[in-house]
């Protein structure tokens, strides 16, 4: 057996003003030797697949791994160049098995479905009998083209995505069984006609995920994935879907997908996002008896393509005169350079935030002290550290602000403690993240409040101005099945 592995990943927020081109990929990851460099979330599957394949004595070839931080549309030229590089390796190596780590919501100029496009072309090269396996983020758009071209598709089940390695192991085992003729995977999906966020820490989602896992391997069901969907990509198929893979039984796959999909639909009221706005969330935090209260600025999540420099929450915190507040992460490479020049201990007049788009809000002028600077930082996330760049801790009279030069969401308290900031002394910690922060912050928080903040990633899913996606989805309409 010969295995070829590759990764091409970007979550495209088609409403984000930040374009994704060569330098955006270069700032994150471009490598031809992905298993020879430290693993990150989208390349750890390649490490796992290589280990698994080598243990079985298979030949392993590796191709490109490229990832860019989520932002706006990917440039056509760079997508085609990366895709064609992987396809050239496929054509040359002619593997029996192709395993890909992708995001599932990558949109390039002229390509609403990059994953489907890449797999369809790979299928055309490899022919009908080769195995093509795909591991993707649940915040994806599951398209007919992807389902037609791939043999096996597995999504991460957890949000926060803490289970990427487990799903890579699952997909490898499924792939081995199919390659060795023990199974005949058939995939079917069910359109839930819903668009929302599904943090898996809620009791309903917890049991949903647990039940998916216990159902797998039973009665001919090989794998179950809930495609949460990525609300901020304007494509024809944007939305929540349930995917089932059965062993040789299309009807079973379809029925199981529908059953799990309808279970989600039936629980929609409990799953409805009813996050407080900023003033209401701060009211709650100010009334708290235990600290720190962790507030999520969900709309300015870099991991969803936001600029990570909006000022709406900070404005309100300053207006209320709150102290002992920590907030992360403001993306501002120019300010980081200025702080590096000024040095730790310097008093500075800075203009913070509000620099990328209208969704960033207005810039804020502050007098600050540079309390700490740390280069080459990483954040804990799952089993692999996530790169963070240079971090700077600025204090504006009891309001502690973390600025960095590499646009990324706030994933873990380690970024504060690495800078020397003790969160136990804080009353409020504001994180720019939708939900990935939860895994790291829930253990140190007295309470976690997701806020429906203004910005790039609105929590008002009914209001997203889709042009390509029909409006028949909940919660835009109460009954899209009618």
């Amino acid at each position, binding site marked *: 057996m010969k295995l070829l592995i590759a990764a091409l990943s970007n979550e495209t927020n088609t409403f984000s003003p930040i*374009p994704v081109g*060569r330098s955006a990929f270069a700032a994150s990851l471009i490598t031809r030797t992905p298993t020879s460099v430290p693993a990150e979330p989208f390349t750890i599957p390649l490490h796992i697949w290589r280990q698994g394949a080598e243990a079985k004595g298979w030949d392993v070839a590796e191709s490109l791994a490229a990832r860019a931080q989520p932002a706006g549309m990917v440039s056509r030229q760079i997508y085609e160049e990366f895709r064609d590089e992987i396809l050239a390796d496929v054509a040359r190596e002619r593997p029996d098995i192709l395993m890909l780590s992708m995001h599932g919501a990558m949109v390039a100029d002229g390509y609403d479905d990059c994953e489907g496009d890449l797999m369809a072309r790979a299928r055309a090269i490899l022919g009908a009998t080769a195995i093509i396996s795909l591991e993707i983020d649940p915040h994806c758009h599951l398209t007919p083209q992807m389902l037609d071209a791939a043999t096996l598709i597995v999504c991460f089940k957890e949000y926060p995505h803490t289970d990427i390695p487990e799903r890579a192991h699952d997909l490898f085992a499924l792939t081995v069984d199919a390659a060795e003729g023990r199974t005949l995977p058939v995939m079917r999906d069910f359109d839930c006609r819903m668009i929302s966020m599904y943090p898996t820490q809620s009791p309903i989602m917890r049991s949903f995920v647990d039940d998916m896992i216990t159902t797998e391997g039973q009665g001919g069901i090989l794998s179950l994935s809930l495609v949460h969907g990525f609300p901020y990509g304007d494509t024809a198929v944007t939305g929540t879907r349930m995917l089932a893979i059965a062993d040789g039984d299309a009807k079973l796959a379809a029925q199981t997908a529908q059953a799990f999909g309808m279970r989600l639909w039936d629980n929609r009221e409990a799953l409805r996002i009813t996050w407080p706005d900023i003033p209401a969330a701060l009211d709650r935090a100010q009334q708290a008896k235990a600290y720190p209260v962790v507030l999520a600025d969900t709309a300015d999540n870099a991991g969803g393509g936001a600029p990570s420099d909006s000022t709406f929450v900070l404005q309100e915190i300053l207006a209320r005169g709150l102290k002992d507040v920590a907030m992360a992460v403001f993306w501002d490479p120019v300010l980081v350079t200025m702080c*590096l020049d000024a040095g730790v201990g310097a008093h500075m007049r*800075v203009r913070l935030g509000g620099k*990328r788009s209208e969704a960033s809000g*207005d810039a804020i002028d502050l007098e600050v002290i540079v309390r700490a600077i740390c280069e080459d930082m990483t954040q804990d996330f799952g089993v692999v550290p996530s790169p963070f760049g240079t971090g700077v801790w600025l204090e504006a009279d009891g309001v502690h602000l973390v600025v960095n030069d590499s646009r990324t969401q706030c994933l873990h308290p380690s970024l504060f403690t690495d800078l020397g900031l003790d969160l136990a002394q804080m009353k409020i910690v504001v994180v720019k993240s939708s939900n990935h922060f939860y895994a790291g912050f829930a253990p140190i928080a007295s309470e976690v409040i997701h806020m429906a903040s203004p910005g790039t990633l609105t929590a008002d899913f009914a209001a997203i101005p889709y042009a390509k996606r029909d409006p028949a989805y909940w919660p835009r309409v109460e009954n899209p099945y009618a």
Partner: protein
Amino acid sequence: MKLLIACLATETNTFSPMPTGRLAFEAGMVARDATQQPAMLLSAPLHEWRRMAEERGWEVVESLTAAAQPAGRTIRAVYEAFRDEILADVKTHQPDVLLLSMHGAMAADGYDDCEGDMMQRARAIMGPDKVIGLELDPHNHLTRTMLDNATLIINYKEYPHVDAPERARELFIMAADAAEGKTKPVMRAHDCRMLTIIETMKEPAMSYVQAMKDAEGKDGVLSVSLTHGFPWADVADVGAKTLVITDANPDKAASVAKDFADKLWDIRDGLRMDYPDISGALDVVQASNERTLTLADMGDNAGGGAPADSTFMLRALLDRGIKDVAHGIFWDPVLVTMCQDAGVGARMQVRLGGKICAESGEAVDLEVTVRAIREGMTQMMGASEMPMGTGVWLDADGVHLVVSSLRTQNFSPSVYTDLGMDITQMRALIPKSTNHFYQNFAKISPKVIHVKTPGTVTPDMTIIPYTKRDGNFWPKVENPFT
């Protein structure tokens, strides 16, 4: 003879919020072999001095060249490290002649007079009889410490500073004559009690410069310099001064310095800054039938320590709906990267300007087309090639904007033509510059208007909040001699 040459230069705007640290120097120039690299404004003298010394068979030792774009105070540790590196070379090599290219308005934390500090320490090492020659920008603060410790000080005579190499040659000859015992230079300065912007390519300053040149080489007068002064620095010695060097005749030096100070006083009405505001300047553009007028956005001159991202002029252009104008150079390395990712031809939503400090004004949101991108751009300033990094031409529906990755003022219309713009079709070019733009723009423009724009270096000497010098100077008071 043994000559040691070095350069340590920045112009410090003590009101600017941007610190000048190691990275700011590295973005400018830090070299130990500056004469092996292309000459820029402040390193050009070293090229002249090395060439002339080698022609005479002198031994030449080259020390550090470090220059940073004007901004706020230099970090103490950075200044001291550069200073001590040069002084260590002076001590090791014990030159007969030390020639330094400095700015003359460099202030660091704890040092209001970096040049004086450097002179004093070099003199202590070299002893009273060795020659120390200093070439300065006329926008300097001429201090007692500098005069007491240098043998010879010469300023550029022109603003725009196109004559740095010429003045370097004159300084070399004076230094050689002094070192060989042919002359015994004495310096005397006279405080003009004036502070204004002196444009030497226009009358009455043009004739004044000619008079300085005419006085040189006669009656024992070796050199006549005018220190214009650098207004945006809160130091005790800020202000215009005349400086005369004679051969061993202190009384003559003093009387000629007084004569030139009187002469400057006599032409003060011609030097009065009655620049129109934005509204007045744009009225002229709108009433004009001529094309390619030049309007200088004086308040946001990077060369005076401004961020080069203020939006006052842009806002007014948009409010009036004026099209076919070109305005630059906006400093925004993050936006440059975004434009590179988007590529030429892309339509983008951008937030431009207003990003560094309150004096930047408010950011402007624009829908633009990326018309051109060019890496490694430079502009000519006299014979010196000034780097500007990557330039981007953004077209906001007829308002053409140039953005750069390096912070620099707009010295030349070549910035626009190098990006492919047809400037003959523009109603106006609007460089962010106080006066250096003049040399190159006057050649292609039927009318040049200096505009009193708000910003970090607003050309209004009467409102600068000095705490270390008195207010007894023209034009703050009409007669400072009463």
